[in-house]
Each structure stands twice: as structure tokens, then as C-alpha cells.
């Protein structure tokens, strides 16, 4: 599609928690561009609905010079190529797995050469890049300052993430979205609240751009790709293999839903079974000693285990971007407790020995606001 005739933008977001946010961003793009006389369409990827908590989902905005140009982007579930991909939670850069058989896809997968990846994050560009799959083509990584904005299905956390993102888009796509138009559109969307205009300006001024060359990024993430069978090789009767006892779905890993992951202090665990019982994804395995270890391949990071655990700081939810693999950790604890406990303290920011007190002054990563299931996060 001719870059000067239309522009495609996708928002990658956490299902349910960021649905309204994604919708507002996509609508604001079209409405702001409309002020220049452009036309456009905004839509959610149909197959993502009904959304699942935290499972990556996508919404899109396509703006075109005229209706004829826009036709090439209509009657589609998703654009195959986008000019800009916007990840509204920085842990999404570890990869996007939306559905069974979809596989795990690099966050930049649909971004055209020399396009943009905008990420809302409190981190520095290089920290985010370190967890992003190795680039196959050059793009520009833009960090829109601010943590991930999570809400619920029926409420919206009106923290102006949408307006900051719109400001950032006005900066990179001035031919489509003029800054003044973005401000005018935001003022309408905020029903006259002038702080929206300030947020657009903030996004415009404060987004950090980091050019990424092909080859930059990490190759540490799991490759998860499947070839779908044809009608001659599919089983007749709409039948799929069910999982055998103890077997997990090879076509859908779900860990891509995680913004935080639980780490366990096996020394303070009282083997009460609560985490194992209440885990909605049955991702705890019983160790020979009767401890419960997390199978990180299956954990969606919902945080229920940490909530039900009766022992303080025995299960701690930690920012997913701190981890570079999904390896289970109990073996390490079994073989070398001091090393394991040092790892636990480094990750969680709390002491492995409750008698000793806090490991550091401030838990650096246990950010409750980023966890939709803790009392401090979510709808409040």
C-alpha cells in the first residue's frame, strides 16, 4: 500500500484490561486524521473476542487519503503490514501469542521496514529492546513514557495513555495527524477537559526515539510456529486431540498473557496446597518434598497464587520483563539454596529469610499497580 496514500496502525494490548484503551486510541487516530480531511476505519480483530484476561489482542486504525484508497484496508480481520505498532504494555515485547495455533510472534512482525514500534513504558529504550525479538528489518522504537494502563471490562482508567500515544503519533506521522488536530480531537474526546491537550503535548514532546537496526534485539525467546493442516490432512468431524493427563497444550502456551510472574520462596513455603488448588491454569507441580513449583510455560501471571498464599512474601509477583526464560526454578533451589535465594531476592526485592527483613530498601519490581489482580491495581 502506498505510504503516502494511507497509513495503518495497530494497537497490541492486554485482553479485557486494555480493551477500552485500545479502542480509544484507534478511534482517536481516525478522528484526528479526519480533521485534515482524511478518511479512515477503526476495528478490533474479530477473532480476539471474547477476550481473555491478559491474552494479547489487537485493534487497528487505518487512515487513507480517500475512500477508494481505504477500500484496500476494508473487509479484513487485520492488516498484514502496518506502519506503526503500538504496544500499550511493555511486557508485550516478549512476543504476541493470541490464540491456539497462532504461535508466538515477534511484536514487530507486521511492522514495515523503517516503520515504528511505540511502547508505553517506564523503562529505557535499551531495556525494552533487550527483551524484543531480533529485528529482521530496521524500525524505530519509540518509548511513550508511562506504565501500563490496566482497567476492567466495564470501566476505563482515564489516565490519558490514549492522549499521550496520540501525541506521539502526531510526532511521527505529521502528514496524517497534525498536532493541533490531535489536540482538538482529544479535547472533544475528553469532553472539554483541557488536561487532555496537555497530555497530547506531553506525548509529542517526551516520546524517546531509538532507531533499531536489523539484528538488534534478543534471540532468547521460544520459537512457536505451526503449519495449519489442509482439508485432506485434518481429522474429519471437527475433532482435535484432547490432552492426555499431565500433558499441556503444545499449540497454545498462554505465558504470553503474563505481565508479572510469581516467584516462590521454598524455604518459607508451608506446603498448604492453596496455590496449587486455586491456580486456574493448574500450573503448579508438586515436588518430591511436597513443595509447589510454578511451571512458567503454563502460568498466565494472574497472581491468584500470591493472593491466596497465607505466608507473607512466600509467593511474590515480579515484573515479567526481568526474566529472560521460562525455566522452572525448583531444581536450582534443590541443588544450591544460597544461589536460589540470592536469585529470589534479586528478582522479588524481598528477603528470602523473613528474620532478616527486606533485602533492599524498596522492592524495585513488585509494582502492584501493574498487576490487575492485586488490590492496588485493576479498577481502582
Amino acid at each position, binding site marked *: 500500500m502506498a505510504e503516502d496514500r494511507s497509513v495503518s496502525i495497530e494497537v497490541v494490548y492486554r485482553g479485557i484490561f486494555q480493551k477500552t484503551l485500545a479502542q480509544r486510541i484507534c478511534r482517536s487516530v481516525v478522528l484526528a486524521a479526519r480533521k485534515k480531511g482524511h478518511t479512515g476505519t477503526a476495528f478490533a480483530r*474479530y*477473532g480476539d473476542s471474547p477476550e481473555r484476561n491478559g491474552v494479547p489482542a489487537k485493534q487497528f486504525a487505518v487512515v487513507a487519503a480517500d475512500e477508494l484508497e481505504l477500500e484496500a484496508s476494508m473487509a479484513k480481520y487485520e492488516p498484514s503490514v502496518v506502519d506503526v505498532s503500538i504496544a500499550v504494555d511493555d511486557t508485550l515485547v516478549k512476543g504476541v501469542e493470541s490464540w491456539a*495455533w497462532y504461535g508466538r510472534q515477534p511484536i514487530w512482525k507486521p511492522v514495515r521496514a523503517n516503520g515504528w514500534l511505540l511502547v508505553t513504558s517506564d523503562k529505557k529504550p535499551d531495556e525494552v529492546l533487550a527483551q524484543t525479538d531480533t529485528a529482521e528489518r530496521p524500525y524505530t522504537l519509540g518509548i511513550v513514557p508511562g506504565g501500563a494502563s490496566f482497567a476492567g471490562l466495564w470501566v476505563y482508567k482515564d489516565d490519558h495513555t490514549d492522549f499521550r500515544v496520540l501525541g506521539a503519533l502526531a510526532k511521527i506521522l505529521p502528514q496524517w495527524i497534525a498536532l493541533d488536530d490531535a489536540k482538538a480531537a482529544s479535547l472533544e474526546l475528553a469532553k472539554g477537559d483541557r488536561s487532555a491537550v496537555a497530555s497530547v503535548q506531553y506525548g509529542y514532546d517526551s516520546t524517546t526515539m531509538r532507531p533499531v537496526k536489523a539484528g538488534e534485539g534478543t534471540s532468547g525467546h521460544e520459537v512457536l510456529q505451526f503449519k495449519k493442516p489442509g*482439508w485432506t490432512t*485434518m481429522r*474429519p*468431524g471437527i475433532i*482435535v486431540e*484432547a490432552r492426555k493427563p499431565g500433558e499441556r497444550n503444545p499449540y497454545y502456551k498462554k505465558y504470553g498473557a503474563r505481565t508479572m510472574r510469581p516467584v516462590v520462596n521454598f524455604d518459607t513455603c508451608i506446603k498448604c496446597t492453596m496455590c496449587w488448588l486455586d491456580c486456574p491454569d493448574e500450573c503448579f507441580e508438586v515436588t518430591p518434598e511436597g513443595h509447589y513449583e510454578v511451571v512458567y510455560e503454563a502460568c498466565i501471571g494472574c497472581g491468584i497464587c500470591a493472593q491466596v498464599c497465607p505466608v507473607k512474601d512466600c509467593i511474590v509477583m515480579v515484573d515479567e520483563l526481568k526474566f529472560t526464560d521460562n525455566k522452572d526454578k525448583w531444581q536450582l533451589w534443590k541443588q544450591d539454596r544460597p544461589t536460589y535465594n540470592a536469585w529470589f531476592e534479586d528478582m522479588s526485592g524481598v528477603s528470602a529469610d523473613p528474620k532478616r527483613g527486606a533485602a533492599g530498601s524498596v522492592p524495585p519490581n513488585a509494582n502492584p499497580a501493574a498487576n490487575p489482580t492485586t488490590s492496588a491495581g485493576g479498577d481502582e
Partner: protein
Amino acid sequence: MAVEVKPKETSEVETEQLATGCEAIAEAIRLADVDVMAAYPIRPYDGVMQAAAKLIANGKMDVEYIVADGEHSQFEIVKHACAVGARVFVGSSGVGWFYAFEAIAVTAGLRLPVVAICGNRALDDPGAFGTEHNDSLAVRDLGWLLPWAETAQEALDLALMAWRVAEDKRVSLPVAIGLDGAFLTHSQHIVKIPTQAAVDKFLPKFDLGDRLLHPDNPITIAPQVDQDWLMEIRRQNDAAMRSALGVIREAHADFKRIFGRGGDSPFLDEYMTDDAEVVVIGQGTLSLPMKVAIRRLRKEQGLRIGLVRLKWFRPFPTEEVVKSLRRFKAVGVIDRDYSFGSPYYGGVLYNEIRSALYSQAKRPVIVGFIAGLGGREIEQPMATEIFEKTMAAAKGDLAAGDTCHWIGVRE
């Protein structure tokens, strides 16, 4: 109250019964050793309910007989029973069939070989019990095999064919046998009841193979699929329907060999067509008054006329239909159904026949007739009118744009 089930009757010779179409179907259920049947009363299908219940009460048949709370449940019950390996039977009529529509649609999608009868009945409102084929025909695009019977004997024979074809792994699709309400479902006729040994020879045990839903074979049936998968699933149904033609031919040949009945073609029953210039084609019992008319008109007027009765509407035997009908100067298609607003305002069969013949360089003139709706009898003057109009069309006397005629309707 428990009913004592007597050992299977081991009659070694074919017997005769005076039986309605529904009773003939009940005999087929017994002979096929059906495991589960689900029932819910609606006329005229409920004749089968009563006949089957009588066989069970008399200790002649052992079948799990489930009376459902409505047709939707009724069709769901057999669908699920079939998925766990039961040979099943079900049926309904008219609007009852429509109430089950969701279950009917998914049964074909899931490739479950449910065998049903549709006791053809006009759709309410107004209430009418007589036959019209729109109930069966409503499922024509969904992957159900749709044969129509002419006599009680053929009802029994088609039922045995139905399980054989439906359960064949190359097909694995449901079958709904069309039985004209009253004329066939509730009229008694001499029916030959085959021996159990002959039926066992013709009809193998039902085996779903690796599609059996069982704890030892953990599978998930019918997950959410969306656009990534659905087209391949539809294509599988298409392939199954295509292979059904060959499987029906095989089964028909075996049927003739084992039971000594069945006619030349599994798909078409031709009557006095050898020297015919003009024929009519239709489905079900309307063939009977038309045959009477053919004999009469041949004798009285020397008309070279005949009849082609279509036995299977789905899969549509295109090759056989084309080969047969292209020999004639004109073909009158008699629809005991309606398709309001369709091309040329014809019935369903009319437009299917026209479509099948379209690719032929030499093709007969085709005239459509809507007749016998709501179970109205096709009387001899109507049959005469149908042949007269078709003969006129063969001579080129057909007024343009006047290709479909309502027969026997009061002005």
C-alpha cells in the same frame, strides 16, 4: 416397568406384513439393531414412535427409547449418542423438524451418521397435516443425505440403505428419509420383511473408529475454530457428499444381491421411458397417480410419455439425471414444494433440474409444476393437464415467461 426382551427372532425366511410406511420404518429400526432412538410426537412422523414403542412393548426390540422434551433435544440426544458410538434413529415433521434446526445443522457439520425420517408435512401456519417437501428440503444445503421413498417397502429398504451409507467412513453424514405424510406414513401396504441374517450381511456393525468419544480415546469435538479452519471443514463435508454417490451405488448393488430388490438405478426409477418423448420427474408418492395417468393417456391418446422418479435429492445424482433427461424433448418437473421468489417462480426441484441440464448442448424444454401442496391429491385431470402442458412445450407452444404452472389450485 421392565420389559422382557425375547431373543431375536430368527426367521430364516422373508415374511410379509401389511404395514404403514411408519411401521415399515420401525421394522427397519429393529432389523438394524438401533441402540438409541429419540422421540417427540408430531404427526405424521409419530407413527414411527408408536410402531417402535409397540415393538419394544411386545419384547421384539431392544433399543434405548428416549422421549425428549421437544424436537431440539430429540435431535441433540441422538447426535451425542452417535458420537459415543450408538447406532441411532430419529425423526420429525414440518415445524417440529424446524424446531430442531440448530441440532440438525450441527449434526451434518460434525459428520455424525444419524439416520432420520422426515415425515413430510406442510409447515404451519395454518395447521395442516398433509405432505409438502419444504421441511426436508430446508436442510438440502447442510450436508444431509436426502432420499425419498415411494412405498412402505421402499421406506424399509431405504432405511437399511441409510445406515449403511451414512455410517460408511467415506461418507459419515446424516440421512433424512422423506416420507410423504398420510400417503406413505399412514397407509398400509404389503411389505416384505427381510431376515435378520440377510440384514446382518448387508449392514456391518457401526464403528466410528478413532472418532469415537470415549475415555480411552481422548478427543475434543467441535472446538471454536473461526476463519482459520472453517473453510477446510466445509471442504471435507463437500468431499464426503461427493463420495456418497459412489457409496450409494455400492450399497445399492449389494442390496440387490442380498435382498433381490431395488431396481436398475439407485438414484432414478424410470417408468415407460424407453419410447417416451416427454417425461415428468418428481419425488415421493406423486409418482403413483402419474403412473396411472401415463398408462391411461398412452392407451387413450397414444402419447409417448413416461416418468422418472428421483430417489435421492442429496447427493444430487447429476450425471444420472443428465443422462436420463437429455433423451427427451420435454421434461415436466413436479414440485410438491414451493420456493417463493426463485428463478421463474419454480419449485426447488425445478431449478435443480434446470441447473443440472444447463451445460448440455442438447437439452429438453423444461416446464415446472407446483402440485399437491398441503397434501392435496394429484387427481387424474391434474395429471392430464401436467402432461398436456409438457407435450405442448415439446412442440414449442410454450408462451414465453410462462414456464411454471400451479396445478389444481382454485382461481
